[in-house]
């Protein structure tokens, strides 16, 4: 039987506010445990939340970017459950009245067509702390630095039909929130985490199959692999005549499989009710309009501009605008290089190759955009050849510094001094009398082929530094003259 997967994602996006959603503590990542947790975050007796307006503004930005309805009256609710890293014993979230209602985004499929993915809602909530199970014999350590960090939970419709589509959607959301500057998009640090709802059904069937939820997947690659392994698991169960159980599962990246975390029978009753410590958030049209006016260029707009302003192909423009980090990197390279098409080539071919090989995102590129731009400049002003440039590029990747520094210290500067080139050419001619004889006896067509030998020898002798065009000219003159 042919099976079809049905996938929906819940993406938890940490908003990059300076302070927490309900307290004045810093949200910076990586501080000593519990140094960024105040009395409110610790849920000390009598402490009260005060909403951070910046989180509201960021949520509205996101809503406008996905053309969603904005909740003009949104309400914070308490989601009750006990866990040691949840200090109040409830998470303040939004249940019945979220700040962002129904919206949508477009993703590009592999065949080049576009598909619309619905966003059901996006709501504001606070992050929990972290439980640290290592380093404490028989005990658990609690770090509340993260507790109270604002999250925007973005819930999609079950509109995706493959792991690839799910990843494309996640990338799209990633690109929107980073474009908006409302999230740093750093998945390794947990700034974006994803719950994947997965079910399968016989192709053509209308009803959904029973779904499972894979919790807390934190990289694009793992999302794809987790969903694929879950789809496979469910198909195998169904083909064996079994039934999929509705449950929460965890993805084990080492084994590339999902395993059961808790079944629905043990699911919490969260007993949501409106938080009496917070007033409903009422926002007016003026507020929304002001945010709309201040929205930065979004991926789609940037793609169009890239193709018009720089004359890039549709494909190149969409790759280079896929993330704000990529777009910013490319534009910086192009600006320094003074040639957008060359810049696009170097970013998409050489740089992307090494990034992919090393599983790095553009933000983690060891080569700063300025350096790549300077390298292209050196090609353009004939300081080095394209071939030498690739060598310099490798050195830059390996952390040897700026292109000028590498060219200088390694003596890679192209030789354009005609006298020096003539000296090398004379030496080659003198060393190879037979080939010279052959060349001189040949007709025009054959000479074009034979000259390659002398060019190669000359370049080799100059360690690639001689200007190839000049080498050609000098050789012709000497061989024929």
């Amino acid at each position, binding site marked *: 039987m042919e099976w079809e997967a049905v996938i929906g994602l819940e993406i938890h996006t940490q908003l990059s506010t300076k302070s927490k959603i309900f307290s004045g503590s810093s949200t910076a990542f990586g501080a000593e445990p519990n140094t960024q947790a105040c009395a409110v975050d610790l849920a000390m*007796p*009598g402490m009260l939340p005060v909403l951070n307006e910046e989180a509201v503004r960021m949520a509205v930005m996101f809503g406008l970017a996905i053309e969603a309805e904005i909740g003009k009256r949104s309400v914070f609710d308490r989601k009750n459950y006990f866990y040691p890293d949840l200090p109040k014993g409830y998470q303040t979230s939004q249940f019945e009245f979220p700040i962002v209602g129904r919206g949508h985004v477009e993703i590009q499929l592999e065949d080049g067509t576009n598909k619309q993915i619905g966003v059901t809602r996006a709501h504001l909530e606070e992050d929990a702390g972290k439980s640290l199970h290592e380093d404490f014999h028989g005990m658990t350590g609690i770090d509340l630095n993260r507790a109270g960090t604002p999250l925007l939970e973005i819930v999609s419709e079950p509109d995706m039909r493959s792991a690839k589509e799910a990843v494309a959607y996640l990338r799209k959301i990633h690109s929107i929130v980073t474009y908006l500057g409302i999230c740093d998009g750093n998945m390794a640090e947990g700034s974006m985490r994803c719950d994947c709802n997965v079910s399968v059904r016989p192709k053509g069937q209308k009803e959904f199959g029973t779904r499972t939820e894979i919790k807390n997947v934190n990289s694009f690659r793992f999302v794809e692999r987790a969903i694929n392994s879950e789809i496979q698991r469910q198909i195998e169960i169904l083909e064996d005549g079994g039934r999929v159980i509705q449950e929460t599962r965890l993805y084990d990246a080492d084994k590339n499989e999902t395993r059961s975390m808790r079944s629905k029978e043990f699911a919490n009753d969260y*007993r949501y009710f409106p938080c009496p410590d917070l007033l409903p958030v009422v926002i007016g049209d003026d507020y929304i309009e002001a945010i709309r006016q201040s929205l930065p260029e979004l991926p789609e707009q940037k793609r169009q501009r890239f193709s018009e302003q720089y004359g890039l192909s549709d494909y190149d423009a969409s790759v280079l605008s896929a993330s704000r980090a990529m777009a910013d990197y490319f534009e910086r390279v192009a600006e320094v290089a003074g040639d957008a098409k060359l810049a696009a080539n170097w970013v998409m071919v050489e740089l992307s190759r090494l990034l992919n090989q090393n599983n790095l995102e553009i933000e983690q590129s060891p080569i700063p955009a300025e350096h790549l731009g300077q390298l292209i400049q050196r090609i353009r002003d004939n300081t080095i050849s394209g071939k030498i440039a690739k060598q310099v590029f490798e050195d830059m990747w390996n952390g040897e510094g700026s292109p000028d520094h590498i060219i200088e210290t390694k003596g890679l500067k192209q030789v354009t001094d005609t006298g020096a080139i003539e000296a090398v050419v004379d030496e080659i001619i003198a060393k190879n009398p037979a080939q010279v004889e052959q060349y001189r006896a040949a007709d025009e067509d054959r000479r074009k082929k034979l000259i390659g030998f002398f060019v190669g020898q000359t370049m080799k002798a100059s360690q690639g530094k001689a200007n190839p065009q000049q080498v050609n000219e000098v050789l012709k003159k000497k061989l024929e003259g």
Partner: protein
Amino acid sequence: MHTKTAAEISQDLQAGKYTSVEITQVFLQRIKQIDSSLNSYITVSEEQALEQAKAADARRAAGNAGPLTGVPFAHKDIFCTDGIRTTCASRMLENFVPPYNSTVAQKLLDAGAVCLGKTNMDEFAMGSSNETSYFGAVKNPWELSRVSGGSSGGSAAAVAARLTPFATGTDTGGSIRQPAAFCGLTGLKPTYGRVSRLGVVAFASSLDQAGPMARTAEDAALMLQAMAGFDPKDSTCAERDVPDYLAALNQPLDGLRIGLPKEYFGADLDPAMADLIQAAIKELEALGAQVQEISLPNTALSVPAYYVIAPAEASANLSRFDGVRYGYRCENPTNLDDLYMRTRAEGFGDEVKRRILIGTYALSAGYYDAYYRKAQQIRRLIRDDFVKALESVDVILSPTTPGTAFNLNAMSADPVSMYLADLFTIPVNLAGLPAISMPAGLIDGLPAGLQLVGNYFEEARLLNIAHQFQQRTQWHTLAPQGVPV
């Protein structure tokens, strides 16, 4: 000295008749002598009190004393006090010392008032008799076999026994007004949002409100003046100016329109209480007030609605007491569930557990609409009743409680009867309105209270009426008989 009101002490300190240290020592001494028979204080912070008194005297010498500078008072043990144990009368917080002040505590500290200590209360303010305290019941200074009322029963007993001139209280369903009535005091529950809740251990967040408990309306005005005001750290606190409560006290009552809800004066009202209220009304009429009957048709629904909403909020508010970060933790937990279950089973008393269970039930999947949502709808109806009634009258008058202080242990086996006795006070919290209880006479030697409910933020009017009434009557000056005064 100990029988003086706060206003009198304030004048004496200003006149230099004695120092703050002297008057503070008088009260500290008195607490030592008398409180063992009342149990009104959980913690007496003698050392800090004397330091504060010294600082107050220095401040006065420097010429920047305010009206409360150097005047002693006591805090209900629900207000977090920096460096002073705050227990909420629970084993859960038996040894909890907050590293911060509640806004109310900070404001009173800034005013220079001297905190003598922390008063007893029902555990987490859940109760109407002060019998649910982990630190034992409080006795009524009028008759030691009787309850002081609750939940601010320690504050009430301490003020009535002259162990402090006045005290703070909190009122979620009557917890200031009912003990004030039982102990012959003037107690004001301000409009919801008038006084900051920051640092006040939460019982039911949408109902809790802090207020003053004193012998006279004048003292209550003095104290409210220092307690009230906008706090940007409490999102439900009202951003509006605080009027001059003292200045409003002497306004005449000519033309004051008083409404009597017919639902409160039914056939089941105790005749002695009915007579007492009628006599008080005569006094108010003599002061220029006019009385008319009004209707609050949804009154009967208020206690059931309250006992869904308050426990629901409480069930979440008390989840933070889990033994993880502070407060009581059970011995040698074997795993996480064991830690939670035994910490909370051992740390909370029966009434608190009862309300957590009720609230958890009311919010559970499948019951939410029938209980919580329905209760919120009723709450709106009750508020609408009051808003409508207050279009035709200025204040609404009733007894504060159906009867006077009952005997210790008389009601503790029957919580529902005790809940139902709060029928006059609870609707006011549901509506978020301000209300005052003032002494209106004695029934069989025990004080009875009269409640006035005003419109939103009309605390000044309520204090004004109570003050005028107290200019004509002596009930508020009577001393209790159970302890030497």
